[in-house]
């Protein structure tokens, strides 16, 4: 099997247009059954393709998701709401931070939460204990929320103008980076119990975020986490990344984070147009 692209398991030809990786695997004359990966009579392909009828398209592959994300973004704008997409690896403390944030802010601004996990309603239950409405999305085998799922959840999540919708994505530092949910920004949470090199190990997520929260800083005396190094790595992949340090357990740094949300929620309400009478509905169920 080709160790670069994984092709060749069934003797199929594979085409990759890349001068670092152009090759052909010997075919085993597959003319029936399923054909995996790229294959065909042409062997290694070159730009220009063949004489077949070519239909020019030029469209983003994730354009369907992006379309739903645009719908969601418009819905948030029309309803005067701030939407944040909270992302981290599993166990970084997203849900605990959320619960503390909701308790501190629920008397100040309207709030709603969308929880994404592969299974269980545990996180939504934990959020509902704060008195804030929460919708749980179970992605099953999926590793990320997409904009379509969030659009449906919004239909069941009443949040008043001037508030914030906090979306807790599936714990995963890879996949959620690629899927726009219509949020105002992604907030990536990195706990000091993890490695300080996470920003360069999982650069897509840190590059996609606007704010990085270093969480669990009450643990700093007990772990080897190098804060300055983490900040340097984060700025290496995203020079504009804003950084906050906090502990949901001791409350240290929480005020700055709460203020950050309130300022943006009020700004979202200020630029918003009046809300339409009907909640957003997708064209299909």
């Amino acid at each position, binding site marked *: 099997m080709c160790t*670069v*692209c*994984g*092709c060749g398991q069934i003797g199929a030809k*594979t*085409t*990759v*247009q*890349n001068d670092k990786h152009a090759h052909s695997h010997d075919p085993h004359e597959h*003319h*029936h059954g*399923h*054909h*995996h*990966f*790229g*294959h*065909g009579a*042409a062997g290694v*392909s070159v*730009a220009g*393709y*063949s*004489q*077949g*009828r*070519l*239909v*020019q*398209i*030029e*469209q*983003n*592959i*994730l*354009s*369907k*998701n992006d379309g739903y994300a645009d719908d969601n973004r418009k819905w948030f704008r029309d309803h005067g709401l701030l939407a944040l997409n909270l992302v981290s690896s599993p166990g970084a403390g997203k849900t605990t931070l959320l619960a503390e944030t909701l308790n501190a802010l629920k008397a100040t601004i309207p709030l709603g939460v969308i929880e994404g996990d592969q299974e269980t309603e545990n996180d939504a239950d934990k959020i509902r204990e704060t008195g804030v409405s929460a919708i749980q999305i179970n992605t099953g085998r*999926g*590793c*990320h929320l*997409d904009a379509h799922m969030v659009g449906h959840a919004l239909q069941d999540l009443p949040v008043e103008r001037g508030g914030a919708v906090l979306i807790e994505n599936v714990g995963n530092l*890879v*996949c959620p980076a*690629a*899927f726009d949910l219509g949020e105002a920004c992604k907030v990536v949470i990195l706990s000091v119990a993890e490695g300080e090199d996470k920003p*360069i190990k999982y*650069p*897509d997520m840190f*590059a996609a975020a606007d704010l990085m929260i270093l969480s669990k800083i009450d643990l700093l005396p007990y772990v080897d986490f190098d804060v300055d190094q983490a900040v340097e790595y984060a*700025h*290496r*992949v*995203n*020079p*504009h990344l804003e950084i906050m340090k906090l502990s949901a357990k001791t409350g240290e740094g929480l005020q700055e984070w709460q203020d950050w949300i309130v300022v943006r929620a009020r700004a979202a309400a200020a630029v918003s147009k009046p809300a339409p009478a009907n909640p957003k509905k997708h064209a299909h169920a």
Partner: protein
Amino acid sequence: MHELALARSLTTLVDEYAAQQGVDRIKQLNIRLGELSAMTRALHFCFGSASQGTSCEGAILNIEDIPLTVFCDICDSVKTPNGRYSFRCPDCGMPTPTVVTGREMQLVSIELYETSELTPDSPHIEQTPTPKNLAVS
């Protein structure tokens, strides 16, 4: 794992364009992936299974890799950084977060079979009536 979602988005998109062209199988699809999408290898792993039962089944997947380039305000020109996620100008060392190319994930074109290529021996010709055909007959 989101490469599977990406592959399915791709086959769904191609299905729509194939239907517009009045065909149910395509010969080849050409896509463009930026270096920051980090998808080339992953997409190859799952494209075969994601394409089963779609217009892409059996089609050749051509991937054009687009390198990362950034714009350096200080040098006032487009640069190629040293490394995929080192957003610094290789010449002046200043941060260069403005990506010019490298984020692409696009379906560029599809290639259809010529009528002459569609012989009864072709693996892409349905030899048995599809449920849809049965329904109308």
